[in-house]
């Protein structure tokens, strides 16, 4: 280990330990009368105001992995990686009116998970189970990816073995177990201050050092021109460019749109929203969260800076590109702070995701199928234990499987979580769909998505399948080089099937479940006199 790595590591450890201490203390913050209730452990008492929600949801959605992977994608492909910006611009106006309805109906009925809502809305435990399993499966690799973020940083500091990662995760598991959602909410403050400071310094200092943005983009364009010329000679498609090529414009737009549709279907996003104390908190955050999108745009540009600076990743691990750039361009004390920002940035979403997955298991599998008469105390205990299991599982993913596998799985995760769109998002807007039709749509969308992903090769790793999410329209018989986002096509298939089968089942007068929610549940606000303390679910 070099001297500069020692300095980096010392600063990293000090900041990491300070944050862990905050995580443990968080249990006393806004101390509840009884922590052993899912509303407290799993939703922070449903009491967070605008500021806390902003930090919490910001830390939840804009994860360490995003901060590492987006510039890595820009570094590898150029303009395509910038889809993260339109994605996070489109998402808030898109979900604005839907999320406030989700908040209201969940507040009125005490829902903790999106599957709780589906259960009550459609009177179908089966559909709720599908939604819950989809959520858990999509979240698991996402947690694993947060570890990839920490690992990229540890690797750059010269720690190649798995032990530091295991220790970091054990600490995370311990304070999440103790403090629940309060831990990431409190840590998110520190994490964001660090991230904002690091990025603002970075986007001023590095371009200044490299001779300005003009020079950075000129070198990036020259870099891609060279790679594309070599690829053309070998008969391969172009590698990348600083503006979009003709073949990937549709992919860019559908990837941004599809990702935006998927974002608030993820259980951890819902957890962040339900933890807020009122509709106005949600609304104000729809205007305030784009501040992070601006930050993400700046971070994406780091990919081009890395090209201009001649930064190379460690081995074939593209995710080390940003840590390597920091290591190369900054004095070691500042690089240490930047690495801590990424490492701590991974802890916030990892904690929220494991809480969200645990809540899904507790509410929609344990309580529904294993112990129907579970008390709130038993629910909270189950969630606490399951959150440990979930994190342990994610850790095993990283240790025993190629990290590339987690990245592939996360890609699949985005496609599969989109298949809950008709039940959850459209279910919030209308009760028109038949419950069985939604199940049929889910199956069709899932099958279509898996098939498309299966046919996509990855030229870099030589894998024949699950190599990306850009589906070539030529495979459907179109005479074009255009590609489209797999998740978008899959959810369209899902919707078409759900609509057709709804018409069919209605014509056949198939029994539809009862809707346990009422129209004005969807506009209820805080202090509503009719809020139920213990959620009741109606038999399907």
């Amino acid at each position, binding site marked *: 280990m070099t001297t500069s790595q020692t300095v980096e590591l010392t600063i990293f450890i000090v900041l990491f330990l300070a944050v862990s201490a905050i995580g443990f203390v968080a249990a006393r913050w806004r101390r509840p009368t009884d922590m052993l209730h899912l509303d407290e452990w799993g939703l922070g008492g449903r009491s967070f105001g605008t500021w806390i929600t902003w930090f919490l949801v910001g830390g939840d959605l804009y994860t360490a992995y995003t901060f590492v992977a987006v510039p890595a994608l820009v570094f590898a492909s150029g303009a395509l990686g910038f889809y993260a910006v*339109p994605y996070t611009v489109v998402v808030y106006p*898109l979900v604005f*009116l839907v999320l406030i309805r989700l908040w209201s109906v969940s507040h009125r009925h005490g829902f903790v998970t999106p599957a709780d809502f589906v259960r009550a809305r459609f009177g179908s435990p089966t559909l709720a189970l599908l939604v819950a399993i989809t959520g858990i499966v999509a979240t698991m690799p996402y947690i694993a990816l947060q570890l990839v973020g920490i690992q990229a940083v540890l690797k750059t500091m010269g720690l190649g073995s798995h032990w530091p990662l295991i220790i970091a995760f054990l600490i995370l598991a311990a304070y999440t177990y103790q403090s629940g959602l309060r831990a990431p909410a409190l840590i998110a403050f520190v994490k964001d201050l660090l991230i904002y400071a690091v990025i603002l310094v970075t986007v001023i200092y590095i371009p200044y050092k490299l001779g*300005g943005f003009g020079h950075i983009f000129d070198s990036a364009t020259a870099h891609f021109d060279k790679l594309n010329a070599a690829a053309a000679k070998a008969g391969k498609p172009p590698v990348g460019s600083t503006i979009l090529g003709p073949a990937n414009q549709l992919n860019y737009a559908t990837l941004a749109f599809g990702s935006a549709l998927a974002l608030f279907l993820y259980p951890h996003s819902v957890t962040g929203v339900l933890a807020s104390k009122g509709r106005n908190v949600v609304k104000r955050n729809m205007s305030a969260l*784009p501040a992070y999108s601006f930050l993400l745009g700046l971070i994406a540009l780091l990919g081009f800076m890395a090209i201009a600076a001649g930064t190379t990743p460690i081995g074939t691990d593209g995710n080390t590109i940003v840590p390597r750039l920091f290591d190369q361009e900054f004095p070691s004390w500042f690089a240490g702070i930047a690495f801590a920002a990424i490492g701590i940035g991974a802890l916030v979403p990892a904690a929220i995701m494991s809480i969200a997955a645990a809540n899904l298991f507790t509410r929609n599998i344990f309580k529904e199928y294993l112990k129907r008469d579970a008390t709130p105390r038993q629910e909270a205990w189950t969630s606490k234990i399951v959150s440990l299991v979930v994190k342990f599982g994610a850790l095993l993913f990283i240790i025993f499987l190629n990290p590339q596998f987690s990245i592939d799985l996360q890609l699949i995760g985005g496609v599969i979580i989109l298949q809950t*769109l008709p039940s959850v998002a*459209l279910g919030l807007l209308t009760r028109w769909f038949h419950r069985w039709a939604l199940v049929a749509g889910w199956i069709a969308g899932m099958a279509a998505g898996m098939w498309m992903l299966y046919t996509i090769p990855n030229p870099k790793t030589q894998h024949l399948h699950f190599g990306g999410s850009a589906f070539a329209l030529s495979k459907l018989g179109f005479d074009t080089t255009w590609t489209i986002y797999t998740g978008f096509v899959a959810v369209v298939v899902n919707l078409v099937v759900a609509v057709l089968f709804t018409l069919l089942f209605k014509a056949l007068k198939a029994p539809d479940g009862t809707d346990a929610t009422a129209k*004005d549940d969807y506009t209820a606000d805080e202090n509503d006199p009719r809020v139920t303390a213990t959620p009741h679910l109606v038999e399907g």
Partner: protein
Amino acid sequence: MTGPDPGGAHDAAGNDTEGGRPRRTDRSPWNWLLVIPVVVPLLTPLYNYAKPTFIGIPLFYWLQMLFIVLGVGATTLVYQVAKRRR
């Protein structure tokens, strides 16, 4: 997916009361504003150009960053209008 009409077609937009409480509604013509920041950032032909540059950054990048303002503006306006109507 977010039509400006989430309350369903039968929702009375007036001041009907139920049990003495004014019935709330999310319906408003202002909600249509939300369509703009959803559609504009997806129209790649609008911004897929290198020039003009801003401090050396191609249009593709700075214009998309500027769309953030569009999103913030629309959500803020819709929120404020709804708040005043209460």
